[in-house]
């Protein structure tokens, strides 16, 4: 099949979520991978939003900025998104804009055939099936499964409505109607990165999650609450400071713990990040980025908090900053974040963003890392004499007991402290050695972090440098540019701090591609990687980076 980019546009509350869901699942059931992006406003009802499906024969897990098909549930949405419909694309709407419009009176057909306006979404899904060449039976089955719990009447209403939408659209398409797509045997998992972070955390032994709701990370908290079998204690804190402090307390008392927030909430956690560094207590913080500053665009995406995450907190401490590229990577990074936070007794920050939170990828299979190490706790039987929570060691890591683990007493202290964990004012010996201890962990960590992933960089003359959620778009851009004969490759960072050591080549032009305006990766590579870049591409409008934008910028 030809790839199809479908924008389902409407107001919040109108059902674009459901329509997209049904169409996507129907395609997946038919053997076609779908990539689904949510674009919406910060409100509960009204406004303009889209559910964007990218349907292809092989997974294309990156956003498209233009639509081949625009289905608009209302005139305002239709006008608003008309510019995104490519020339020659198909508009599906309740009323004609021009002769090409596939007119499908969603509401009226729903009333007529389903018996209620409530089935307008089914009409729309049916219409899309016709436009896209998807057999209506599959849509009907998918719909039926989705609404089964509402009873037979709902199933029947939806079925008739979907069929009506299908028929009307097909009739209007006439000769333009595509032939039905053949069924394929391929099977995909369809999910977002935030769908798997809670599962990966639980697999890593996370036992405690406290957070304060904030888009785009609220779903992580909710997922734990929805699945009590995971055994994770879940608490909605009174504010973000309480959220991270509860988690740190729990961690110190032996529970692997995490929190999740966005930039504004993370800003409130900054003092506690510094605390975690000082008391050497592991903690995992998911920072779901959205465009700032301040409240910014709460439901949109950005990569603006990389340097903030690296430098957040007063004083100097070791930490990890990861930025997964996709759901499978999110599983791995989450597990690794728990493991390394625990092993080095440091805070680990996982940088996600609204795009990763809300976009569903089609992936052939998902897997947990083959090994998930246990908590790196000390064996109390090996402790001789008084326990020293901050015992000086070669690698800076002290044997860790949790509060109440054994008779050995554990002192955790936010002041500069002795090896025993007591306040010290010894500036001659203790202070310098504790500073070196804590920073030695960072030096060791630099040996742990993974280098950037490589994509056709060997013979490249231009190398694109990206991080986190933009991998799909950048890889697609590389493929397209290669298609045009450009010797382009990419290096993609998902482990950003400590910055892995990289041997830069001096025969290539390096470009950074980021979802921000100031070039944060570029600055990081200059300060800590010794790289001078050739140019940078930044997107900062709140929408995810896409391949076309990158290709154009490099033209």
């Amino acid at each position, binding site marked *: 099949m030809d790839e199809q980019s479908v924008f389902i546009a409407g107001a919040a509350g109108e059902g674009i979520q459901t329509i997209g869901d049904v169409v996507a699942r129907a395609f997946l059931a038919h053997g076609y991978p779908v990539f689904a992006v949510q674009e919406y406003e910060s409100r509960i009802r009204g406004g303009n939003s889209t559910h964007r499906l990218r349907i292809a024969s092989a997974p294309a897990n990156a956003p498209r900025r233009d639509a081949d098909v625009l289905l608009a549930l209302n005139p305002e949405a239709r006008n608003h998104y008309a510019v995104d419909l490519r020339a020659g694309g198909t508009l599906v709407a309740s009323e004609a804009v021009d002769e090409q419009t596939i007119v499908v009176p969603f509401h009226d057909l729903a009333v007529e055939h389903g018996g209620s306006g409530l089935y307008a979404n089914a009409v729309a899904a049916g219409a899309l099936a016709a436009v896209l060449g998807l057999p209506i039976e599959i849509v009907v089955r998918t719909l039926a499964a989705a609404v089964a719990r509402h009873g037979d009447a709902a199933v029947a209403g939806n079925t008739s409505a979907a069929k009506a939408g299908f028929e009307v659209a097909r009739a209007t398409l006439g000769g333009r109607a595509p032939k039905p797509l053949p069924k394929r045997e391929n099977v995909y998992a369809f999910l977002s990165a935030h769908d798997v972070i809670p599962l990966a955390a639980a697999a890593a032994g996370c036992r405690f999650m406290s957070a304060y709701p904030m888009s785009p990370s609220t779903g992580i908290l909710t997922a734990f609450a929805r699945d009590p079998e995971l055994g994770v204690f879940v608490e909605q804190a009174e504010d973000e400071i309480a959220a991270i402090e509860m988690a740190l307390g729990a961690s110190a*008392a032996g529970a692997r713990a995490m929190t999740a927030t966005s930039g504004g909430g993370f800003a409130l956690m900054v003092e506690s990040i510094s605390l975690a560094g000082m008391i050497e207590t592991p903690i995992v913080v998911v920072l779901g980025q959205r465009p700032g500053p301040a409240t910014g665009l709460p439901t949109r995406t950005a990569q603006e908090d990389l340097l903030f995450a690296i430098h957040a907190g007063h004083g100097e401490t070791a930490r990890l900053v990861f930025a997964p590229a996709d759901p499978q990577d999110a599983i791995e990074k989450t597990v690794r974040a728990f493991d390394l936070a625990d092993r080095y007794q440091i805070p680990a920050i996982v940088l996600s963003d609204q795009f990763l939170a809300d976009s569903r990828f089609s992936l052939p299979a998902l897997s947990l890392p083959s090994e998930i190490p246990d908590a790196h706790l000390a064996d109390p039987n090996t402790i001789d004499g008084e326990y020293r929570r901050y015992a000086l060691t070669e690698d800076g890591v002290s044997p860790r007991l949790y509060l109440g683990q054994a008779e050995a007493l554990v002192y955790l202290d936010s002041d500069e402290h002795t090896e025993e964990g007591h306040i010290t004012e010894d500036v001659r010996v203790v202070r310098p050695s504790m500073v070196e201890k804590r920073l030695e962990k960072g030096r060791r960590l630099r040996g742990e972090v993974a280098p950037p992933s490589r994509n056709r960089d060997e013979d490249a003359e231009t190398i694109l440098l990206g991080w986190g959620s933009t991998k799909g778009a950048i890889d697609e851009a590389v493929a397209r540019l290669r298609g045009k004969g450009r010797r382009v490759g990419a290096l993609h960072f998902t482990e950003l701090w400590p910055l892995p050591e990289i041997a830069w080549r001096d025969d290539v032009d390096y470009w950074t591609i980021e979802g921000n305006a100031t070039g944060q990766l570029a600055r990081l590579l200059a300060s800590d990687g010794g790289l001078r870049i050739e140019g940078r591409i930044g997107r900062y409008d709140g929408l995810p980076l896409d391949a076309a934008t990158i290709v154009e910028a490099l033209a």
Partner: protein
Amino acid sequence: MTTTQDYRSSIENQWCPGCPNYGILTALERALVALGRAPHEVCLVSGIGQAAKLPHYLRCHAWNGLHGRAIPAAIGIHVANPALTTIVTSGDGDLYGEGGNHLLHAFRRNPDITVIVHDNRIYALTKGQASPTTPRGEPTRLQFDGVEIDPAQMLATAVVHGCTFVARGFAGDLEGLSTLLARAIAHRGLSFVDVIQPCITWGKHPLAWYRERVVPVPTDHDATDRNAALSLALDSPDRFPVGVLYETAEKPVFAESYRVRVGDGPLARLPRIGRAAIQARLAAFVVNKD
């Protein structure tokens, strides 16, 4: 058997000689001994301030964290390891000023921890600024012409939130305070004890001034009567009823439903969820062919 000796720490005490903080320290030590708690069964939690140094001076587990953040840390500790007797011991500035929001919401949660406020009505460690409990009109090293706002009413706030144990203590009464703290610690649910602790360096009134104004809670006081508790709790400029103002056992303790599910042990000892269970959940994202 646990003795006070077991709790003796060799760490140099940084408080001013003669400070009533020593009274709280001793009373707490005695209370723990009286309850038969061994040091490794106890975890003290504090923020930053003079009071907040206390955990260094008792031999038991301790978290001496950030200014204002003792309460959420203690709640996390309590949930992760309920076997520990978790006691917050920190200053009025710490718990009522910087940390006011956490205390307010702790009243709602009713975690099984004890909160001891060293209420010296001053920010001592930062050298004498008003704390949330400094009386209106009292001059300080920052409010030179006297504090111009009203003191916080945290005991009364606890009572209106149905905090399950609300008490006022006096650091100058070792006997009474150690008994009171033992009761507070033994209580299941949040025990909140505001201890009058006159600072002899920055405070306006010496211990003796308070001693004259401290009165025991009337013997006929019904500690389950909210209104009666409120009138004892509200600040009066020169009468400080000491004892249990309010107590109820009627409320579930924080995290109870979770405990019913996972049991009472430390979370660190729970078996990790199986790979298979996670893999099954991951598999559920696969959209099956129809």
